[in-house]
């Protein structure tokens, strides 16, 4: 969290930062007006913490945080002017949170259906709309400010420095909240969504609901900010919640470092203080913040925290070293590792096979898949081969729900896959997959990537993971242990703490397989898994495939590299132009005259594979 490895170190840095926050008025000024300005900066910081949950954790573009801030602030101010009981800081924050969350729910529920940047743009528009509407409406005071000072029953208590301390306290609590979110199962789902929706859906993470959750969680700190703002400033006016506020907070977030805990706090605080201090250069404000946004986004995309981390990694590598394996093993509790790669439903050994019947799919005038029958049995390795464009990957995409069938059916027992909506329910039924181009969270460690998959096996309530309940922590320990086992099955334990984006391409494929195994599926579909593997990796790959089949999984491999496939497959189906032209054991298929005629000239069947002709062991590959 705070660039420190040990718990004591983190505690000390936290205390130091809180001290800096509390002592800031000594430098900035303790006059009532100065404290008011600092209170304003604090409320911007709270908004920044919320924005970070959507933008930094879940990677969703959210440009108008001031929309929620303004809505919550106005609601609490209106309530306070009408009801005496609504004049305490708690009541005002509570009202502001409720309004902010409700507005967030409405906007997100509608805009997330379309995806992309609708959420970002519509919130930015609402940030523009609210001050205009508030400036016209008599309820919100019109162009003049809606002031709490005119209410006789209102007294600010706490006030002055005490109020500032309360504000700092709120920021500390919110930072803890952000940390709890990020390190929860939900937080890891945010990470998967940020890394890419195809990745997320392949491990059963539903994009819509996950994004919605991130937005609702973000609305809580932003709502608190609205209440705190109105309470501390004792007024709200159209000028105080303009759309520019959103741009400043965005700038602060980017400057500090989106996705970190401390970055948004420091960044927004710096920008907020700059707004207050440079107020007399008002005209140049937009120029400065606009330029900061452009330059930081291009030159320093990880923000201050990213730069600090890189510097620390260079000058004190020991401080940034990942925890040792023993350390982690102790933390995860080695005992749990025993129940590692067991299929999702280990009790039902009689689980029926995956059956594709008469599958048909047309793209324009081309029949990509034309009446294909296929059976993938559990405990067996089934290879799907064929020339380029023969419909192999299309079939895989049909099974996993990326495309819908034009005819035929796909089922596991009496459960139809083809009538499910999209990829997520298919993944949740226990169908895991890998991709032709590995889809990984590049900014996460190898272990973190597998962990995101292993999370699917945790059954505790999702909300509980936000509070890190004992149940959730037990789930996490188990998932972590299972992730280690999956990593060691593909020989990547030594790479556990390498960033996934920085490991070689072939290794990334093995990592994807580890993630697919960590989901504990019934069936694993591998899309050209052997492309780009080194000879040593190819051996590890073959072992991993045999191991998966041995553990009772049904494995379907779509592949070009026939020698590798023929080494591991129990059964082979050959496709050409969307139709099955042969099926049988590898030996039968490679002798089949039809297969030889279709295949020869494009690829020679009996060419010795680089994988099998290479020395059996390669340094660094043994687990």
């Amino acid at each position: 969290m705070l660039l420190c490895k040990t718990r004591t170190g983190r505690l000390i840095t936290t205390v130091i930062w809180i001290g800096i926050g509390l002592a800031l008025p000594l430098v900035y000024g303790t006059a009532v007006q100065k404290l008011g300005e600092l209170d304003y900066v604090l409320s911007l910081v709270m908004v920044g913490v919320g924005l970070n949950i959507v933008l930094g954790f879940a990677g969703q573009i959210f440009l108008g945080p001031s929309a929620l801030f303004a809505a919550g602030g106005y609601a609490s101010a209106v309530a306070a002017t009408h009801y005496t009981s609504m004049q305490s800081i708690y009541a005002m924050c509570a009202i502001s949170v409720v309004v902010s969350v409700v507005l967030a729910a409405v906007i997100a529920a509608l805009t997330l259906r379309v995806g992309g940047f609708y959420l970002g743009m519509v919130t930015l528009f609402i940030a523009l709309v609210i001050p205009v509407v508030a400036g016209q409406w008599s309820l919100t005071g019109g162009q003049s400010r809606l002031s709490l000072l005119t209410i006789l029953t209102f007294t600010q208590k706490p006030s002055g420095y005490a109020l500032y301390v309360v504000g700092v306290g709120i920021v500390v609590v919110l930072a803890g909240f952000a940390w709890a979110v990020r390190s929860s199962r939900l937080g890891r789902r945010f990470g998967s969504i940020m890394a890419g929706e195809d990745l997320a859906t392949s491990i059963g993470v539903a994009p819509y609901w996950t994004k919605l959750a991130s937005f609702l969680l973000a609305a809580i700190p932003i709502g608190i900010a609205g209440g705190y703002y109105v309470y501390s400033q004792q007024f709200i006016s159209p000028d105080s919640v303009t759309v520019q506020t959103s741009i400043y907070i965005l700038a602060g977030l980017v400057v500090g470092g989106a996705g970190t805990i401390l970055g948004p706090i420091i960044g927004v605080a710096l920008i907020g203080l700059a707004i207050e201090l440079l107020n007399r250069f008002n005209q140049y404000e937009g120029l400065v913040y606009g330029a900061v946004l452009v330059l930081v986004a291009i030159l320093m995309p990880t923000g201050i925290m990213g730069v600090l981390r890189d510097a620390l990694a260079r000058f004190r590598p020991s401080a940034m070293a990942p925890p040792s394996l023993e350390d982690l093993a102790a933390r995860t509790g080695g005992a749990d590792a025993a129940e590692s790669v067991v299929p999702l439903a280990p009790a039902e050994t009689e689980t029926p096979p995956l059956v594709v019947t008469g599958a048909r799919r047309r793209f324009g005038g081309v029949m990509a898949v034309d009446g294909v029958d296929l059976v993938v049995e559990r405990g067996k390795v089934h290879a799907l081969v064929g020339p380029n464009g023969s419909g192999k990957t299309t079939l895989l995409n049909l099974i996993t729900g990326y495309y819908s069938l034009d005819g035929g059916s796909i089922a596991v027992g009496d459960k139809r896959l083809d009538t499910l909506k999209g990829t997520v329910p298919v993944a949740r039924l226990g169908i895991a997959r890998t991709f032709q181009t590995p889809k990984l969270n590049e900014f996460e460690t190898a272990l973190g990537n597998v962990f995101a998959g292993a999370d699917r096996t945790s059954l505790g309530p999702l909300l509980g993971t936000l509070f890190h309940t004992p149940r959730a922590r037990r789930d996490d320990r188990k998932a972590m242990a299972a992730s280690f086992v999956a990593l060691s099955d593909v020989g990547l334990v030594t790479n556990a703490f390498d960033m996934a984006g920085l490991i070689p391409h072939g290794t990334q494929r093995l990592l994807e397989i580890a993630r697919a195994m960590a989901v504990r599926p019934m069936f694993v579909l591998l899309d050209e898994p052997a492309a780009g593997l080194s000879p040593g990796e190819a051996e590890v790959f073959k072992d991993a495939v045999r191991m998966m089949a041995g553990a009772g999984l049904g494995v379907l491999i779509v592949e070009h590299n026939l020698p590798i496939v023929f080494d591991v497959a129990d059964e082979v189906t050959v496709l050409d132009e969307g139709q099955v032209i042969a099926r049988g054991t590898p030996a039968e298929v490679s002798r089949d005259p039809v297969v030889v005629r279709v295949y020869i000239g494009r690829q020679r069947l009996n060419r010795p594979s680089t994988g099998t002709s290479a020395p059996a062991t390669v340094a660094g590959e043994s687990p």
Partner: protein
Amino acid sequence: MTLFWTAVVAGLAIGSIYGLVGIGYTVVFNATRVFNLAQGDLVMVGVMGSYLTLVVWKLPELAALVIVLAGVAAIAAAEERFVVRPFLKKSGAASFGWFIATLGFSAVLEAVVAILFGHRPIVAIPSPFSLQGFHVGSVQLGYRQLLVIGTFIVVIVVLDLFYAKSWLGQAMRGTAEDREAASLRGINPVSMSRTAFIMAGLLAAIAGFVIAPITFSDPNIGLSFTLKGFLALAIGGFGSIRGAVVGGITLGVCEQLFDAYVSSNYEILVGLILVLLVLTIRPEGLFRSTVARTV
């Protein structure tokens, strides 16, 4: 009925501008997958450029138009080179960077224009067309409004021909559909993105020049155009020029009718209500353009 038709004509004119902003987005998005948040501010620069050339420098119309076109296109090209291109190579989690950068660039444009012109009073920019128009029945058709609408129609026709007939237009469409395949066929994605931004700049300049006599010389209108242009796309359907046209006109006409019959104070709510309605009933917009997913 006079009130109604007057509002409709005014709505067609302002809707044309929303449509032009929306088309500017579409042209850039189709070639680069970047949503240029400075598009509305480029229109604003077009408006202020007209003010500078016509009011301050007192140049003849044609010279002013040429200068505005060249100036805004140059700014758009610079934006592509320095603000957007650094992100075209990156992917993954940092991919929202261009969003932040184009938003920052729009703030810079707005601030620079405000510094240069902010102290001057907001005035109407002269037009060769008189304020008057002619009457059809009791409805007055303003020449200036007709100029905007006419320009919009011409732009749509020219763009349609460009995409359908010219090699460059087809190359840009190809890049939009499959970037990799396009670059394998010798189409350079970098020059496509530069061309797209210059086209978007020209569109913004045209929009700014024709709308200037109607909107006055206000440096603060940029963000509003940016967002209304997006609403036009969201209403009409994202990704196609047809969607931008339909959405822009719908938004403009609804706004003016709301003004005429309900209240001009809350005009800004019209876009919000429309877009939320469309998202509820037809999330993909009135005209859908489907994009196939590939894995």
